[in-house]
């Protein structure tokens, strides 16, 4: 956790790019320094085989807030996100340097239990991926694999999670129907409910709305707003408005580098970096 006091840069003044080649957010934080850090990324480099995808990423992601990753396609947003629950372990030939701490514990330590980590860091994918099981069983899945089979507990969790994901009213009469019969938006909220059911600390979302229509998107955004009371949320999005609407902090990535990380408001109204401004105003990307 950082206790660095930083000089708040005057709102009107823009720093020159040369000053900011290594954007270390801690130096540029607006409200960020007052937050409690949950995830601390330090000097993270990631290689897919010989190809480097992330360059020296350092950032402190605050607890119980929504942090958005934005940036053009292929800039490494998903890659970084997937580092946080070690999903990249599944990909052959990935090498990671640097450290990543959650609650002060290095998740890349050899002694880290990946399964335990993933229970604490849930994930919602770009393409909704409900299991070909009933709605009820989808929600229970995380508990069942953890060995919970008590029907009373499961019933309770299912109801709580579905209510938490604002899906309860829509599906309460067909809990035992296949989840694949739900609409796209419902499926995505089911996946969120499924992640919520195991009561993680962090929920990672990789472009959760990119395949949804505007109404379904609005519902998910509303849901994110609710969830941040309880969870730390990191969301990757392509949609600038979405980042603006539902995140507290925004990190802008470009070509595998973290360019700027600050309060969302500040990123959108007064970015320090030229690249950020260009991206936000739609001049490239």
């Amino acid at each position, binding site marked *: 956790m950082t206790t660095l006091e930083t000089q708040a840069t005057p709102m009107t003044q823009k720093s020159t790019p040369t000053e900011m080649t290594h954007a270390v957010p801690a130096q540029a934080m607006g409200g960020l320094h007052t937050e409690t850090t949950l995830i601390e990324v330090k000097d993270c480099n990631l290689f897919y085989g010989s190809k480097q995808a992330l360059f020296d990423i350092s950032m402190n992601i605050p607890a119980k807030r929504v942090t958005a990753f934005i940036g053009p396609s292929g800039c490494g947003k998903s890659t970084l996100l997937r580092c946080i629950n070690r999903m990249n372990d599944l990909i052959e030939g990935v090498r990671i340097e640097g450290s990543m701490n959650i609650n002060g514990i290095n998740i890349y330590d050899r002694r880290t239990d990946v399964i335990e980590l993933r229970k604490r860091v849930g994930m919602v994918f770009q393409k909704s991926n409900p299991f070909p099981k009933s709605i009820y069983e989808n929600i229970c899945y*995380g508990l069942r694999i953890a060995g919970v089979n008590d029907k009373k507990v499961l019933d309770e969790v299912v109801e709580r999670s579905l209510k938490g994901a604002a899906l309860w009213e829509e599906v309460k009469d067909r809990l035992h129907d296949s989840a694949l019969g739900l609409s796209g938006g419902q499926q995505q909220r089911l996946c969120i409910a499924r992640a919520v059911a195991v009561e993680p600390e962090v929920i990672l979302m990789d472009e959760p709305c990119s395949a949804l229509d505007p109404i379904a998107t609005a519902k998910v955004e509303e849901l994110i707003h609710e969830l941040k009371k309880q969870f730390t949320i990191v969301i990757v999005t392509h949609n600038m408005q979405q980042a603006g609407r539902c995140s507290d902090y925004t990190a802008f990535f470009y070509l595998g580098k973290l360019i700027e990380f600050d309060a969302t408001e500040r990123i959108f109204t007064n970015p320090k970096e030229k690249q950020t401004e260009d991206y936000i105003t739609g001049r490239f990307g």
Partner: protein
Amino acid sequence: MKAELNKDPDLKALFHRGEHLIWITGAALSLSLLMITGLILLVISRGMGFFWPSPLTQVTGADGKDIAGVVMSSEKFRKQGADGKMVSGERSNIKVGNRDLYGLDFRWVEHEGLTNWCTPKDAIQIERWEYGDFIGFIKSFNQSDAPVAEGTVAWERFKKELPIALKLHRKIAEMERDEIGAINNDIRAAELKIKKIQFAEKDAVKRDSQVAQLQAQIAKDKVEFEEVRVKVAKLAESARTNSITMLSSDGREKTILMDQIVRAYQPNSMSFLQKAGHYIEKLTEFITDEPREANTEGGIWPAIFGTVMMTLILSALVAPLGVVAAFYLREYAKQGPIVRAVRIAINNLAGVPSIVFGVFGLGFFIYTIGGTLDSIFYPERLPTPTFGTGGILWASFTLALLTVPVVIVATEESIAAVPRGMREGSLALGASKFQTVCRIIFPAAVPGMLTGLILAMARGAGEVAPLMITGVVKLAPALPVDATAPFVHLERKFMHLGFHIYDVGFQSPNIEAAKPMVYTTTLLLLIVVVLLNVAAIQLRDKIRKKYQTGAFA
């Protein structure tokens, strides 16, 4: 040059777009379909008609003797005429029956010089338990060698007596099989026990007393055996009192005991309905009865049973083996040159001639494993082997080995087709790899596995060569499942439709009589394979449907 929008494209344009390639693919499909339908139609037309009663034709030969029988086929042929020139003639293959009188029951007859073609209404075809059919006319019905009715009256009397005779015949057969069989089994078991005791029991006093006890039991069984045998002999005697005297077309007399007759009919005076009834009766016999007369007559029930049972055992063996192997290869083995080599080897295994698998089965399963089992569990029966000889179990093992590549390949493909998102979704919830495999990937891959199993079953059910050295026989004395404990006898030899076709078609002493049987059996084999497949496909679709939309609690 731009073509007009609403103009038909010219040939060159079509060629350029690749239309001709589409035609070629269509033509290839049509050709394959044509050949397959041709084969099936041939089998159906030859196989289905066999049981329909054909008319009995009578004709007077050049030597003045009458010939009666069923015209099987006619053809034109060329022969040397009287003046040495080649002339064309016509001849027919006639099933004349009466093998005991004529020696041969099929005859090629040249049409030249034949007169008086007719189909006499009172011509009779008699199916017998032995010597094939008798074709001729009834003269009299006899009781204890004395004629009691003649001509039409005799025929009517005969028709009344035949069901009674058949019932008696069945009863005798049952007694021989069940009662005498059971006593025989008892005696054999007791003898084996004696051997075992002499083999294993060290205490001489105990041994002698036990042996004496068993010997007393054998003696008792033998008395009982004698009683039953006398009873059977008496029944058999009574079955031989009635007989009919028949006249063959060339005027010879033949007395046939009622006990020897399976069925008799006058095909030339049967109505359509009667013929249909006859057809159904014959078909039922074919499917449910045991073969007679070197497999050229009767039914093929043991072969159907053997085929289905072997295919089921094979499926039960190949499915778990193939699926587990595929899961290891795809999910756990480290992907690299070794796994790639293994995969290539598996694919090539499908191309190894099936007889090689048969030889392997004989050497490994039968001699090594079976021989070891015998020396451990059945030493008292040696040198007569129990598991150390071909049997339905070893044949199924051999075919399982033969078909396992199909299942592995299909399963691997279906595992690979499970969306990555599903796998990641499970892992992201804190599932271990094993849990993900069991709960997500396995259920999703089941339909693909069943596809593999269906292919394996189809291949296995139609395979003959490896069976010939691992346990198939032309006539099995008993089914692998019966009423004697332990009810399922996996060590027994069995009959198989595929081998039956080979045996009847190419090993039969009476090729002409066997020919229609080949088609009928082929048809039945096709039907059995199709039915097994349909059942498996139905199962797969049910699972797939459940997996796609239905409740999956």
